[in-house]
């Protein structure tokens, strides 16, 4: 394993892979730094560029976006008090106060170095856990796969803080989208309304791009011209700092670093929770275990180290889930999954066995993205900050053009662009009607596999009780039920609290899973 990893690192260091990795990381940092451009949006923008590359180059670029994006969000979080991405929300709690106290460089570089170390620790988990988990998953039969996907879907639907019913409806709508087309076993066309294009079903990438990009973009359009001008003074401050001193500050807080990394990894492994939860939970946990919790929020190093190490470690966890099980850990890995399929790679337990070059190449790209990120930040952090002030009326049309290219370039047919438009409208309406987007996307991604495994299981043995009596399948279905019960309980608790407080707030856009 280590020999293969070493060889992959040397391979990725070659210019033909290192350049896409570096460009992806740069795009991620810049995209992550711009409030309103999420990591998901950035990876969607980078996606069409990968169509012309070989699989590892494309995946290296996307991994770079992921790593860079998680680190980029802290720039505007610390200097403007606005998180560049949802994964940097908690970073604002202490990053911005520290910068305002006259230490912007310390705030930014604590975050960047914490991202670096947290990400590398997450990388260790990625490298050593993926193969054992994949081997475990290879023991699965269709009953176990079906139950695993149902568990993932029920967890995502149940995690929505808003209406539980809408969460499940969103997931079922996602499943319905995959039903349209041809039956995966006998290729009988169904529900395609006579359309030849729909005989093949909706391609999932234009759906993903439409749903996520339009919901975010149109939410920005709603507010265009009405935002108050944020102070840009933070962007002009000096970021000079002693890096050794900053690194020492991080290593003299090993418990915070390690515990936050563990939180990030665990949340990354669970499907569709995302970096924002890792970021916030890590900050919250660091406060709980601190001897001075009252200092959190005033600009202390722990308040930056915890969220930033967690959100980068989360990347490692998400990659484990997609590589070992073929289930995306969040929206970003959902796009990566789409890119893999386009390149003829099927993520899942067999991925690492049948494509070891690409799998270990991905590990290597993930590890190398971190020093590349540090190098880019050292050289260009001031320049990236200028991009934060690009006006929305310029950014929005350009982003939409990239979305069209991404959808069209899939198979060079306009029908994919029409699909993009259709699901863009659906995505925006869902946000306005307060339907969560994550369950729909997971339903679209997993729908075919759920059906294939269900049908295979029944064709192998028509006894439906096998779904419960086979141990792993039974446990997974029980966990699904438990997650629904837990969600119902938390939902009722929220309702009771709401009745006591009755505090309505504006609906929020699901920016990431």
């Amino acid at each position: 394993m280590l020999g293969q990893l070493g060889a992959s690192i040397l391979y990725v260091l070659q210019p033909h892979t290192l350049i896409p990795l570096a460009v992806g990381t740069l795009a991620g940092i810049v995209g992550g730094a711009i409030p309103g451009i999420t990591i998901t949006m950035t990876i969607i923008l980078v996606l069409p560029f990968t169509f012309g590359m070989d699989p590892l180059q494309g995946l290296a670029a996307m991994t770079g976006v992921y790593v860079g994006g998680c680190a980029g969000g802290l720039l505007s979080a610390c200097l403007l008090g606005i998180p560049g991405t949802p994964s940097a929300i908690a970073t604002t709690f202490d990053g911005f106060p520290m910068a305002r106290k006259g230490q912007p460089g310390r705030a930014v570089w604590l975050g960047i170095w914490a991202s670096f170390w947290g990400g590398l620790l997450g990388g260790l988990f990625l490298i050593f856990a993926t193969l054992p988990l994949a081997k475990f998953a290879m023991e699965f039969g269709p009953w176990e796969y079906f139950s695993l996907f149902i568990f993932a879907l029920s967890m995502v639907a149940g995690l929505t803080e808003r209406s539980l019913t809408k969460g499940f409806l969103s997931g079922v709508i996602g499943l319905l989208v995959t039903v349209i087309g041809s039956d995966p076993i006998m290729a009988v066309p169904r529900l395609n309304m006579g359309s030849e294009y729909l005989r093949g079903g909706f391609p999932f990438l234009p759906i993903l791009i439409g749903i996520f990009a339009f919901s975010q973009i149109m939410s920005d359009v709603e507010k265009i011209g009405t935002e108050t001008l944020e102070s840009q003074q933070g962007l002009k401050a000096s970021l000079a700092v002693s890096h050794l001193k900053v690194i020492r500050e991080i290593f003299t807080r090993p418990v915070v670093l390690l515990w936050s990394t563990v939180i990030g990894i665990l949340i990354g492994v669970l499907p569709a929770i995302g970096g924002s939860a890792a970021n916030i939970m890590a900050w919250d946990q660091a406060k709980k275990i601190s001897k001075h919790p009252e200092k959190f929020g005033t600009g202390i190093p722990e308040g930056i180290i915890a969220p930033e190490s967690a959100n980068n470690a989360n990347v490692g966890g998400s990659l484990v889930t997609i590589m070992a099980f073929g289930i995306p850990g969040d929206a970003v890995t959902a796009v990566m999954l789409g890119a893999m399929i386009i390149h003829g790679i099927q993520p899942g337990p067999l991925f690492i066995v049948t494509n070891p070059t690409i799998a270990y190449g991905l590990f290597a790209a993930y590890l190398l993205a971190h020093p590349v990120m540090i190098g880019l930040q050292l050289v260009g952090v001031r320049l990236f900050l200028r991009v934060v002030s690009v006006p929305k009326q310029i950014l929005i049309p350009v982003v939409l053009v990239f979305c069209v290219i991404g959808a069209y370039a899939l198979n060079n047919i306009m029908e994919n662009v029409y699909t993009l438009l259709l699901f863009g409208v659906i995505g925006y309406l869902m946000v306005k009607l307060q339907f969560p987007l994550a369950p729909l996307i997971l339903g679209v991604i997993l729908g075919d596999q759920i059906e294939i495994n269900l049908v295979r299981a029944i064709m192998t043995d028509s006894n439906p009780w096998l779904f419960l009596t086979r141990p792993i399948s039974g446990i997974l279905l029980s966990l699904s039920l438990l997650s629904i019960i837990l969600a119902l309980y938390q939902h009722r608790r929220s309702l009771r609290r709401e009745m006591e407080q009755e505090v309505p707030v504006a609906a929020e856009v699901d920016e990431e899973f």
Partner: protein
Amino acid sequence: MGRDGVVGLLLLLISAIFYLQAQALPRPSLVPIGPGFYPEIVLVCLAIFSLLLIAWDFLGRRTVSGRLPGKAPAKPTAPPRYGMVLNTFVIFSAYVFALPLLGYLLSTLLFVGVLQALLKPPRAKEWVLLATVALATAFVTYWVFEGYLHVLLPRGRWTGLP
């Protein structure tokens, strides 16, 4: 009936229409399940959750939609510019339908220019920036994707141009 109830009814209608279509799918005699088996399960689930949504709406038991407990009241903000959103969708739709007719370059040039102008009407000198951004977006992306990455972009039936 509230908004959720209307949505629930619409989804219930969709599930009913598709269910009838799924029922009409062939049922093979040699295997226990056919192409309609899974769609019927999904559509029944859709119908059940739609009914739940209607029921919740009818009973007036608002779910936590948009109400996150314990949060401070949001600062008063300007009302969302839904007219702008609608116009953006209209312009984007026009762009999408113009692509196969005019080709990528001309459609993109027009789209980026018009949308910028809609989102923020330019003053005197800002027209230059608007035009520059529109030209740069169209031509740079064309060069990068078609010229360098060999990713084909739409050709125009009317213009014969890319």
